[in-house]
Structure formats: structure tokens, C-alpha cells
């Protein structure tokens, strides 16, 4: 058994600072274990969100040594324990207390995406038929655990703070899952361009790099959506057709 130092952000909505805690570490421990140990032994009121502790719920997002990570899936043996390990809250969202941030904006932003609208059932018994290959393409996006690490790292939100004009990578993945759903017949291109602000994404792929589920956010979700927006809104033939029709 050895010990390591964890430099943890302690603070409120108004102010805060890093505090050092040293605690025992043992084989197989993850960052969240260290935080829990400190919470139980030294700082009962250390605020942290968590649930499943197995990388499936996306609650324990934080910045570990400056990298957006799930604390439950970050093993201590991947970190240099000779130096203090810094743990701070996601910086793109308003702080609540310690490692907890106010992520409620994300739940609002989702509502700007039009909901699922299926085509009429294929069979008389009210069910549909879909090929596994078509389902798989969308299943990648449906793996999203809503940890919001992609939102945290997106410079449109993090640096430029365009929360009222851009829904962020998470919700573009959500829109992609609906747009490419084999049964969906809704049109979302207009909103993607306007209220959802897809044009702000300049495909730096930071979101893809931090996704704990390995979703290829930029290449598989955002770029095809951008193409769809162009096809449906900027296509010159469609545009001419619209002019004549009106």
C-alpha cells in the first residue's frame, strides 16, 4: 500500500480553490475510489456525482489532470502518482459545489431537437421490419451515456459560450440518431441550421477524442448532418424548385 496526493477543487458557485488530500492507494483503484475514500475519511461534505461506477451512466464526469474523463473509468495506474493528481469540475458548466456542476442547460437544449416520428408500421400486426445493418449504424449514436464530456471540451461552448446558439456535440449526436433512424420520417435540417447552430462546428474533433463510449462524433454524426443540411437547404435545384412552386 502506498499513498498519493489528490489536488481537488473545493468551492461554491462563487469561489473556490484546490486543496490537497493524501490517501492510500491500492491495486486496481480508479480516481472515483480515491475521491470516495477522501470523502469518507477526511471530507464528508466533498461533493461529487456518481452512480454506476462502471462507465455506463455518465455521472462522474470531471477534469483529471486537465483531461475530461469519467472518474470511474480512470485508473490510477494510468496516472503519474509521483505528482499530485488534479481533479476539477467540468469547466464549461456553472459550478455548483466542488466537483458538481449545473448541467441543466443540456436537458433544455435537447428539447430543441424534434422528437422521433416513425413511418406507419410495415406489418398488419403493427410492427416494423429493419435490417441489422441499418440498425447498427444508429446504435453507435445510441451508446451515448450523456456524460457531457463532449460538451465540456467543445470550444464553441467552452471558449465562446454560445449556449443560446449552438446545441453542442451531444445533441448533434442525438439529432443524428433520429435522422438516421431507419423508421424516422421527421425533417430536422432547418432547425439544425438555425436554432441548433450546426454551422458553428468547425470539425476539430475534440469531442470525438474525449468520448468514453468511442462514438465517432464528428465523422459519423456531425459531418453527415452538415451534408444533409446542405443537400436540403442549399441544393440549387431544390432551391429553384421551391421558388417556382411558391
Amino acid at each position, binding site marked *: 500500500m502506498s499513498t498519493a496526493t489528490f489536488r481537488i477543487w473545493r468551492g461554491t458557485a462563487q469561489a473556490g480553490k484546490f486543496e490537497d488530500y493524501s490517501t492510500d492507494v491500492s491495486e*486496481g483503484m480508479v480516481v472515483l475510489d480515491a475521491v470516495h475514500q477522501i470523502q469518507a475519511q477526511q471530507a464528508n461534505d466533498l461533493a461529487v456525482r456518481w452512480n454506476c461506477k462502471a462507465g*455506463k451512466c455518465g455521472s462522474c464526469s470531471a477534469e483529471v489532470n486537465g483531461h475530461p474523463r469519467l472518474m470511474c473509468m480512470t485508473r490510477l495506474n494510468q496516472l503519474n502518482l509521483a505528482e499530485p493528481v488534479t481533479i476539477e469540475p467540468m469547466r464549461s458548466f456553472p459550478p455548483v459545489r466542488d466537483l458538481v456542476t449545473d448541467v441543466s442547460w443540456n436537458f433544455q437544449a435537447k428539447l430543441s431537437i424534434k422528437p422521433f416520428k416513425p413511418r406507419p408500421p410495415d406489418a398488419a400486426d403493427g410492427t416494423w421490419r429493419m435490417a441489422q445493418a441499418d440498425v447498427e449504424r444508429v446504435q453507435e449514436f445510441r451508446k451515448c451515456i450523456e456524460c457531457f464530456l463532449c460538451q465540456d471540451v467543445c470550444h464553441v461552448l467552452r471558449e465562446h459560450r454560445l449556449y443560446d446558439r449552438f446545441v453542442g456535440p451531444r445533441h448533434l449526436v442525438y439529432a443524428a440518431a433520429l435522422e438516421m433512424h431507419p423508421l424516422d420520417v421527421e425533417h430536422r435540417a432547418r432547425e439544425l441550421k438555425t436554432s441548433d447552430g450546426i454551422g458553428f462546428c468547425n470539425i476539430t474533433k475534440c469531442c470525438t477524442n474525449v468520448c468514453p463510449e468511442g462514438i465517432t462524433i464528428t465523422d459519423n454524426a456531425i459531418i453527415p448532418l452538415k451534408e444533409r443540411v446542405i443537400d436540403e437547404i442549399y441544393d440549387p435545384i431544390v432551391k429553384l424548385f421551391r421558388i417556382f412552386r411558391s
Partner: protein
Amino acid sequence: MPEHETFDHDVLVIGAGGAGLRAAIEASAAGVSVGLVCKSLLGKAHTVMAEGGIAAALANVDDRDNWQVHFADTMRGGQYVNNWRMAELHAKEAPDRVRELEAWGALFDRTADGRILQRNFGGHRYPRLAHVGDRTGLEMIRTLQDRGIYMGIDVHMECTIVRLLKSAGRVSGAFGYDRERGRFKLFRAKAIVLATGGIGRAYKITSNSWEYTGDGHTLAYDAGAELIDMEFVQFHPTGMVWPPSVRGILVTEGVRGEGGVLKNNLGRRFMFDDIPELYRSQTADNEDEGWRYTQGDKTARRPPELLTRDHVSRCIVREIKEGRGSPHGGVFLDISWMAQRLPNAAEHIKKKLPSMYHQFKQLADIDITREPMEVGPTTHYIMGGVRVDADSQMSSVPGLFAAGECAAGINGANRLGGNSLSDLLVFGKRAGEFAAKFAQSRKADPIDSRQVEEAEYWALEPFARGTGGEGPYQVQYALQEMMQDLVGIVRNENEMQRALEGLASLRERAQKVGVGGNREYNPGWHAALDLHNLLTVSAAVTRSAIERRESRGGHFRGDYPDKDVAFGKINIIVRKAQDGRMEVSRAPIPEMPEELEQVIDKMK
């Protein structure tokens, strides 16, 4: 007097996992105003952890399946102390609930002809579990969550309810605090649905998250409702055992459904050594037949690894106790052996069990396509809970409903894998429907302000004692340790009597727990308040387990290792007596209608 904010809803749903969300959607569709309270953020509930699938007799993969077979499987798995009416409704309605999820956007894996694919699971005669790889729970919760948010349900996230309020013998509201700011909230409601999940955090080794502190069980009990079957706790046979920090995390039964085998340190498939009489005719007697079953051969019988969870757990405990365990105190679960049978085994495993592959790779440095896993039993689920009317899900307190894990009846002495997700859907819907009807039939009752004041005073006590009091986590750990040791997989009268003494002294310690800091997002304070729930459900489990002097399903008595016909005719009930004591009694199981008896006989 501390301040509180007041909210009005026709129906208040407490808990936003599968059952709570499904109840909220149904009540909202009925046109009443709905409030949904959850301890975590929306979409993080423990349902996301469900991996295997949703059991429903769709008969897409094997056309011999139908509701009767599913009903008979559920009753056999529950060792016939189930509420047969719930088991019947569940088997009949589960297919529609699954198809409804698809209509709301869920994307299940497909059969070759494009229908919903179904997989094998323990105790189910035919491939029956609709699934999405091994992340079915996430698919289900996201589908329900997204359906719910567009319906305009009011969601109160990160809010804990500490007390139900009553007027004239029926529920009139609930009182709690928001975790973020620590402010008190009062909810006035005409009907309340409890959907708070289980009690796994009463044990040291568990697959359950921090939320599983028996809140719904305790809220109902304190409000005067009856709890039933509390002795039946399910220990899932396969939790991770190494490294220590991941001990208890679930390894899906899907691993065995896809062909994974259990071995001891001699390399022997020990599950072949002990096949119970009740299942002998349905179980393979050689390795080849078992393999063929997992690969879809309809003429083959299932391998003994897919016997019910209670039995597999006990076999694993026996191997470990008798010195045939793995290096870290488990046994071996091996799926990598499939390479001997399949050409692209590694790819196949990664595709069928992606999150298991990921979980072992990241948390234990184990590549499951190349080496065996080490697994052991972990506290997973409680069959017992709030006693409800089968059709409406209403408890013995008017206006108080319960659904999902915190309600009881469908599973009897042991739950089959896959029957939980379907239970959430079937009875979540029913609870929402009947709660809405109940709410529409009455006016809101006035709130008794004394009850509110008393709850506020109680909730703030830990701050009054300050950091000079005992730490909340130390009491919690002591409780978990004790329940694991004395009321675990194998139980004995004298150990459980010691547990009762232990619970009494832990109750005294809990009353001295103090916390520092303020009310804003203070986990120490939250843990202090949760202790009351953990202690209450632990006592209910222990007292019920003492009362059932036999072994059945998830309840195994070392001092009464056999089944007793007389106990097969009763359920054990726990309620709070007038003087505050916990009262234990027995209730006869109502006689099953002739036609259901015949269904069971036919399937034997």
C-alpha cells in the same frame, strides 16, 4: 421554522428508472399533471445497468414460445410463491410493452427477417430476451426519458423524498429536499407512485449504485403500508471480484447465454454436478448439448450454467468454500474457449458483449476473448417489496402505488433474468394508469403542517450534532459488513439473531450521527439521512428471513436447507405496528384458478 417550496401535482412519481418513467408517461397520457422526482440526474437511474434484455414472449426466434410458457417459467423460477395474477399479467402484456418501446424509437437487435431478436437467458425455456447488445437498459431508459420530456412532465432532478404525508388515512403528499441546494420541497399530490428500486446498498458486495438504499420500501412502511417477501434477496452469481475496487460490479448473464462456462480451479465445469430435480428434464447433461443450445439448436437443452441465479450462486459459494475457487476468491467464467468452436470467436464475442469486453479491459486489464474472468456472487436485486394489488399496483394505503423493484409479487422467491425490465414496463404502465384514475376521482387533501414540521426537524438533526457526532459513512460501512456476514447467501437462526442485536445498536449509533458543512450538495448529510432507510429494510429482511424456516429461491437457510411444503403456501408480511415495532406475520397465498394450474402442469 425552516422554509420550503410547495409544488402541486395530480400524480407524483418517486423514482425515474424504467418503472417510474413508464408510470409518469402513462399518467401524463391520461391527462393529469405529473411530477417526477429522482435522486440523480434524469437518465442515470440504475436501469441503465441492465445488460441482458427484456423478457417477452414475442416468439420471434422460437415460435413455440407464448405467454403460457413465460408464465410457467416465471412461476417455476419463483418457486411458486409468486403472486400468480401478477405473473399472468406480466407474461401476457410484456410483448405489447416491448413493441411500444420500438414505436417510441428504441432500436433492438434484429432477426434475419428484420424482427426483434431474442436471446437465451437463465430459466427461460426459449430465447426470449429482446436486447441491444449488452446495453439494453440504457436503450430502454433513454427511449422512455426522451418520450417523457416531450410530454411536458415536470422533472425534479436530484431531489430526495424523506417522508410521505397522509390525511384521513390516505396519501396527500411527500416531503423532501433538493440535493443541489439543500432546500426543502413539499409536494402535494392526489396519488403517489413509488418506483425507487431496491436495497442493495444494505450489503457490502453489491452491483447496485448509491441510490439503492430502500427509500420506497421505507417510505411505504413508515406510511403504514405492508411489505411482503422481504427475505428473498437475489445474489447474482457473477459479479467482478478483482481488483478490489470493482468488487460486485455486474457481469451479465448474457455471457453464459452466449456460451460462457463456469469452471473451478481444477478446470471442471462444476455446474454439471448439481442439477435440481425441478429442472433436470430441461437441462443438458453433456457439454456438447449445452453448446448447441447457446448457438440456437432447438433440439438441445440449456446448459446448467443457465440454471436460476439462486442455484448458480450457491454452487459458486460451495466451490469457493471447498477450496476450488480462483486466486481472488471467485470461480472462472470463460467465454474465450469459444475459439475452439468458432472461427472468428474474438470478433464474435466483442460484437455480442461489447460493454463486458470494455469493462474487463479497462477495469481489470483482462481480455475476455483470450482469458477467463474471475467472478463471484454479488447482491443484485430484492424480490420483496411493497405489497400491491396485482391489477392496479395500489398498496394497502389508499392512493399509494408502487411498481418495479420496490414492489413485490411477480418474482416470488427468485427473479429470472430479463423479467425485471419487463416488470418495470408492464407494472410501471399499470401503476401510472391507476394512479391517474385515482387522482381524477378525488380532490387534493389538506396537508397536515405538523407532519411537515416534524420531518423538517428530523432532517436537520445531523447538523445540530455537528462533526462531534459519529461519521455517517462509518455507520453505513458497519451495517453493510454485518448484513453481508450474517444475513447473506447462507443464513442461520443464531447469526440472524445476532444481526438483530447489531441492528439495534447501529440504530442507536445512527441517532448520534452528525455532519459538518452546510446544506449545499453535502453527501455526508445525504448519507446520514439514508441510514434510516437502510436500517429499516435491513431489519425487514432479517426478521422475514428468521420467520421463513425453510430454503426457497433466493432465501437459503443453513439450518433448514430443504423446502417445506407448508411455507410454499404462505408469504411473509412485515408492517409497522401502532407502537412503532416491526410486526411479522404470515399470509396464505390465494388459490390459483384452475386454468393457470393447468398451464403450469402442462409445462412441467
